[in-house]
Structures are given as structure tokens and as C-alpha cells.
């Protein structure tokens, strides 16, 4: 189905001198469009590596990622960039907003490359997200003038602005207090339901589990459990 992600026999090996370190071992996974997937596991279990491979930020040592029926392994550097531009939104643990740009400019950044959207549509989309994410009145502020929760909301808006099929979030709540973390997760859940965007995010915060429709637990680079939550 369009928007489904299939991971076949994915392994990722890092070399530290002569020592091989398996970050991921033989991962097989299928994620349907519109799912709200939480990847859990202790530090070093391979959560970030898995997200990076899904988002084509990293290349697996073995195996293949299939998206929309296309094998991404055969893609060139430019094709991978195009794939990311069209389909993926990223949310990072440390927000990664550009400090010299305002809230509005940060949200607008992914749209720079979008030639198919009219400037009116872009304006409306930014305005819509600013309102939905409770950022009204902060459009002209710089990241340094925002709280952690506000910064992460800007990052979410930036990830969603071009209506990607998948949003990948690597520990989006790790730098936030528990109250703000819950708020951010609620917003993500809401966006998942409204915009039917697939959300895949990693965390080791057990309080977030209750929002997930599907919980994948990793241990030592392998899938320990893959549970659908009713």
C-alpha cells in the first residue's frame, strides 16, 4: 500500500578498529501508513540507527528498505535527498532549530525546496500549524527566546509543514520535563489522527507507551517484541 515501509533483513555494523559492532541485526519490519509507532529500548539498543535507516540518513550494511514498493538501496545520493524531501519529516532530540532564523522561518525552511506549492498555500499552511501547535504570537521569536517545549513544537511544525507521509522522531521528549513531554506526545498523536501521518519515534520513557498503537522493543540491535496496542 502507498506509504507503507518494509524493512527486510536489515543489519548495520560499525567498525571500531578490528572490532565489529552490530547496531542492528537482521531486522524485519512492516509499518503501515498512518501508524503511531513507538520504538523502545535501552541506550545502545539500536533505536536511533533504525530511525536513521528508515529516514535514509544512514545506509544499512545488509538488507533493504522498501518504500512505496521501491527499494531505496538502489537510490543515488540525490535521489535519497529527494525521497527525504517528499516523504519524511524529522524531529530531533535536541530540536535542531536554526538559531539565526525566527520561529516562522524555521517552520518555512523545508518549503524552500517545494516549487509545487504556491506562496499563498505556504503562508496558510504555516499559519495553520502555528495555530494548531499553540505558537501564535511567537512567529518572530528566535529559538533562544523559547522554552524547550516551545522549541520542540516548532520542530514538530517544521517536520509537518510539507505534509510528509512519515515523521521520524528520535527521542523527542528526552530533553523535556515530564509535563511538557506529555504535551508534545499529545500534539504528535493529534497530528497523527488529523493528518494521517505515520509517526515513528523512539523513546525509553514508559509513560509514553499508553499513547502508542504499536510498540516495538529493541534489545542489542534485535527486535525483542512487536506489540499492537488495542
Amino acid at each position: 500500500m502507498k506509504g507503507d515501509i518494509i524493512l527486510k533483513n536489515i543489519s548495520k555494523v560499525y567498525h571500531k578498529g578490528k572490532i565489529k559492532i552490530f547496531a542492528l541485526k537482521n531486522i524485519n519490519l512492516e509499518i503501515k501508513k498512518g501508524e503511531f509507532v513507538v520504538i523502545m529500548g535501552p541506550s545502545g539498543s539500536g533505536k536511533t540507527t533504525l530511525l536513521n535507516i528508515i529516514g535514509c540518513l544512514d545506509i544499512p550494511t545488509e538488507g533493504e528498505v522498501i518504500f512505496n514498493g521501491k527499494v531505496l538501496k538502489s537510490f543515488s545520493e540525490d535521489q535519497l535527498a529527494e525521497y527525504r524531501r517528499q516523504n519524511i519529516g524529522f524531529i530531533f532530540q535536541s530540536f535542531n532549530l536554526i538559531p539565526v532564523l525566527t520561529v516562522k522561518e524555521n517552520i518555512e525552511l523545508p518549503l524552500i525546496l517545494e516549487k509545487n506549492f504556491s506562496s499563498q498555500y505556504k503562508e496558510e499552511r504555516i499559519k495553520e500549524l502555528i495555530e494548531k501547535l499553540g505558537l501564535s504570537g511567537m512567529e518572530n521569536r528566535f529559538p533562544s527566546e523559547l522554552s524547550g517545549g516551545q522549541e520542540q513544537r516548532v520542530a514538530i511544525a517544521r517536520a509537518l509543514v510539507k505534509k510528509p507521509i512519515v515523521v521520524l522522531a528520535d527521542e523527542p521528549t528526552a530533553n523535556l520535563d515530564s509535563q511538557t513531554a506529555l504535551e508534545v506526545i499529545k500534539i504528535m498523536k493529534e497530528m497523527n489522527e488529523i493528518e494521517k501521518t505515520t509517526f515513528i519515534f523512539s523513546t525509553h520513557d514508559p509513560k509514553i507507551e499508553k499513547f502508542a498503537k504499536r510498540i516495538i522493543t529493541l534489545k542489542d540491535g534485535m527486535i525483542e517484541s512487536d506489540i499492537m496496542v488495542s
Partner: protein
Amino acid sequence: MAVGFMSFVFFDSLFLGIDKMLVEQLMKLQDSSIVIYSKEYDEDKKSYPLDRPIKDINEILKISSSIKNIEALTPRTQFLCEVIYLGKSKHIIATVIEPKTDVQVFDLHKNLKEGKFLDDTSALEILVGSALAEELNIKVKDTITLSAYTKYKMLNALDFVVCGILETSVPLINESTVVINFKSAEKLLDLEGDVNSIHIKVPWNKRESISGYFNKVSKIAKQFKEGLSDDYKVYTFKDLYQEFMLLMKQKRISSFIIVFFILLISAVGIVNTMLMAVYERVKEIGIMMAMGFKPKQVRNLFLLEGLIIGLFGSALGAFLGLLSNLWLIYKGWNLEIMYGEKITGLKASQLGMPVWGVIYGEWNIYAFVFCFCFCILIAVISAYFPSRFASKLTVTDCLKFI
């Protein structure tokens, strides 16, 4: 970058100005713009013969009256002689001048250290170069003896009263020149109204370049060559100072290299700035690549930034260069005020300065064009390598970069 640009055009203008002043001084004190000798004299001019004069001065005067752009002309004759004073003596080259017209062509009268200049009527008066006067301990109003061969190869000697001491920026004049008028020369050398050379002054406008002036002088010299018979030899200042001009050309190359180093130093600054700009933003590059920017697009962004920095830097440099050149060309750099005897206690010749007084710069549009292109090129090149480095990083490496 802007400072490098400004320094380049400033020093280029200064060096050009100094070159122009050097040529100007040689012309104003020694040979003028155009010199005409008889053909026979020219064949043996190193021995300063007195029996090979210009046959018909009127022929030259007739042509000169039909040529525009000639300010004045004057006759001169040079001869070898011995100066004798209180038991000391020195062999030198003496110059015979016609004071009334000489001051219209040459600036000797402006270079008097003490005493007065010659006039046409007074006989047996003499001007002595300052270094020569010092060497022989000659002072104004002293009586010195000149010994020389006449036109008919007879040795003759006469006493002259020193009326003035000359101090110029040309060492040769200071060290081994005495000047007398034609009235005195008649008595010493039996010249019978002969002159060996005619010196012609072509006005040099303040803003005129060396090459522009040379073209003007060459055209006038050509008119003389065409109008005069084969009995004459016509030289321009460039012909006379061929070796000096060649030396000046080489000096221009070496001064260009020195000034070019200033630009290179500023180029290092630009490269450093661009490298810092890229390294500071590796994480941002990672974010942009994660959003779908292609490596080429990232590279182009940095090249664009380099180009903009280059354009702004060049524009600012051109403006600063223009200001510094305006000051140097119209106001001039007064060496006397900065390094004069009152400040340093040293004379110009002791400081080893080839020129003295107020140095004026020269416009050189090529220096501006060269700097403008060079600064932009350097900015783009220095943006290219770090941007290439940035575009080759993986997104995960960029995001991990602190």
C-alpha cells in the same frame, strides 16, 4: 578583504605616483621632454665635444613654432672641466645654460640651497652642486677656478664667483655639476655662439599618466624628426632613460608582487572566515540535508555566500580605495611634514628618498578592476573547498558534529 583591496590600490597609486615624480624630476632637472643634438655630436656625445654644435637653431625654432603643446625650449652645452679650489680639485661635467629661457624649461632655479640663480648678463658667476661644494669646502661668494679645453682644444682656466649652491634630488647634479651662463662660457670655451643641445619642454598635466604623456611627447618628437634634416638627432625622455624605464618596469613588477602579498594575506582571512562559517554550521547543513537539500544545493548555498561576501568586500574595498586614492592624488602625501629635517633631523638625501616634497598618487583603473575580480574569485574559491567538504559529509555525521 576590503582593507587588502584598499591597500593594493593605495600602494599601486603611490608607486605609480613616485615613478611619475622620478621621471618628472629627471626631466625638470636634467634633460627635459625632448632633446635635439647634431648628428656628429650624437655619435660622440659621451666625450662632450665642443666642435660639433647644432648647425642651425633657427631650423628648430621654425618647426617648434608650428607645433602645439610646446611650452618652451632652451639651449644648453655640456663640457668636461676641472674645478680647483684651495689646492683641491675635481674633474666634473659642467653645464652652460641660458638662464632666461632655462627657467622656463628646467627647475634648477627652484633647487637653490643658498645664494642666487644665474642671469644672462652677469659674467663669471657659477652655481655649484651641494655635495661638490661640501667636498671642496666651497661657499657662496668664494672664487673657484674652472679649467677646460676650448672649442679649439686649447686649455684655458678662469676664476668664477660662486653665486649659489644647488641642492636637488638628483645625486649626479649635487655631486658633480657646476652651471655657468653662455656669456661666461664664451670667455672660457670660445664657443662663438654655438650650442650643443636644444631642450624642449612639453607640458605634463597633473593628472596625465606616464604612458599618456609619453605618447604626446613621441608625437611631437616625430614632427621634429620629419621636419629636420638628417643632420639632427631627436630624443624623447623615454629614449634617454631607456635603462631607467626598464628598471622602473622591473620595479613595478616587484612592487606589484609586494602589494599582491597584501591581497594574499587578506585572501587567507577570507579562506579562514569561510572555513569557520562552514564548520560552525555543519549541524545546520545536516538539518538541511535531512530535509531534502541535495549535496549540490548545499554547496551552491555556500558558493553564493562566498560570492556575496566577495561582492560586498570588493565594493567596500573599491570605495575605500577610491577615498584613499582621492586623498593621495588631490591632496598628496607630504614627506616633509612627516619625515622632514625638523622631525627626523635628517636630510632627504640622508634618508635615501628618491623623491621629496609632496608625493601625489596616480589613477590606475586596472588596479581596481584587478582587485575587484581577484577578491570575488578568492571569496568563491575559498567558499568552494569548505562547501565541498560540507556536502560530502553524511547527514548523521553532520548532526553529531558539535
